[in-house]
């Protein structure tokens, strides 16, 4: 018998998730252990990072009114990554957009959203300061009314953590993949002893493929305004432009980012999701660690950077 991909599918972080490991014929017990570890780690990340759970560490921080709050180390790590990503993206990704997001109408988990007109958060401004005491595991928000949302980085962080958890549970793990609603972390060998092949769904043609990525390791994330729409007639989306505090007007239908880490991929995907094509191209050129496939509402998809696409598209005629 040859190696196979053992999979576990589950619902978490508001979406469908999957963990998968490359397993030999006698690895069944190790595979089940690794998959269970991934699932437990995703649950732990959700308990720490979700803003839709009033008991989560993030909700307690947001409700603390600027007081120091003891939080899980996962929230400390995710906040550190998010604040670094805010610097890397010149503020296009900002974890403190929550007041603007809530004012726009995205104030409960997506399935429970009511249709109501958008408002703008009074007096809100981007770039709120967050203070972190790493060793003590303490965090506080320094500005009145500030609140954090890790929706633009949390799934990527959780995917990376779950992949690490699988390796901790099965140190000889040949290879594995964690997919949290389209944000993926992957590493090691596939059952075919080759690279991982990740399909990029085409948002303009349901069921079709916009490209196939070929990766040995790293993270992949897609951000877009093709599905998470709300408000009157689905006229609003969840990608807030930190400059205006409202759902962004510029930007692609979807953008897929490849990076060494899934959290990094997701943060950059969120930033590129509100960027016009020229800005997106400049952003990727300035960040050689990432590459992207930018799919506008109309016209050709734009591969940006050294995108590891499997399929070759040949233009045979231009009219």
């Amino acid at each position, binding site marked *: 018998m040859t190696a196979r991909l053992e999979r576990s599918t589950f619902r978490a972080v508001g979406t469908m998730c999957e963990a998968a490991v490359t397993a030999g014929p006698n690895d069944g017990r190790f595979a089940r252990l690794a998959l269970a570890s991934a699932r437990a780690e995703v649950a732990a990340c959700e308990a720490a990072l979700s803003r839709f759970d009033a008991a989560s560490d993030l909700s307690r921080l947001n409700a603390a009114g600027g007081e120091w709050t003891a939080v899980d180390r996962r929230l400390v790590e995710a906040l550190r990554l998010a604040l670094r990503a805010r610097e890397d993206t010149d503020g296009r990704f900002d974890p403190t957009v929550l007041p603007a997001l809530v004012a726009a109408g995205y104030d409960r988990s997506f399935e429970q959203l009511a249709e109501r007109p958008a408002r703008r958060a009074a007096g809100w401004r981007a770039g709120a300061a967050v203070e972190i005491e790493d060793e003590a595991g303490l965090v506080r928000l320094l500005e009145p009314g500030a609140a954090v949302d890790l929706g633009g980085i949390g799934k990527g962080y959780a995917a990376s953590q779950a992949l690490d958890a699988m390796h901790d549970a099965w140190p000889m793990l040949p290879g594995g993949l964690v997919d949290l609603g*389209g944000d993926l972390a992957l590493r090691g060998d596939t059952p075919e002893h080759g690279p991982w092949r990740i399909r990029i*769904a085409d948002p303009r043609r349901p069921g079709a493929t916009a490209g196939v990525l070929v990766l040995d390791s790293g993270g992949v994330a897609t951000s877009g305004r093709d599905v*998470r*729409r709300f408000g009157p007639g689905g006229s609003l989306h969840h990608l807030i432009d930190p400059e205006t505090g409202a759902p962004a007007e510029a930007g692609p239908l979807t953008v897929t980012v490849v990076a060494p880490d899934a959290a990094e991929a997701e943060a950059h995907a969120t930033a590129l999701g509100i960027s016009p094509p020229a800005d997106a191209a400049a952003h990727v050129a300035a960040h050689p660690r990432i590459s992207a496939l930018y799919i506008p509402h109309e016209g*050709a998809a734009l591969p940006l950077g050294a995108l590891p696409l499997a399929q070759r598209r040949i233009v*045979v005629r231009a009219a």
Partner: protein
Amino acid sequence: MQRVWAVVLSVWAMLAIVAVLAWTHHPPAPVSSPAAAQTLVVKGANGKQQLVVVQPGALGATHGTTSTSGVVR
């Protein structure tokens, strides 16, 4: 007798030539099914239409899919 030997030699020479040709010329690889290729008409950046062919065989089995998180609308 000389004519017999000449005929035998020429037959052997012809067989040798055929054998060499058979050895050096491999049969052509089977052509992949045209149905495997994807032809797309897409609009270029300047509005021009482009006919794009996605190479056959490039869309093999995949291990995962990335897309915007699917949620209930």
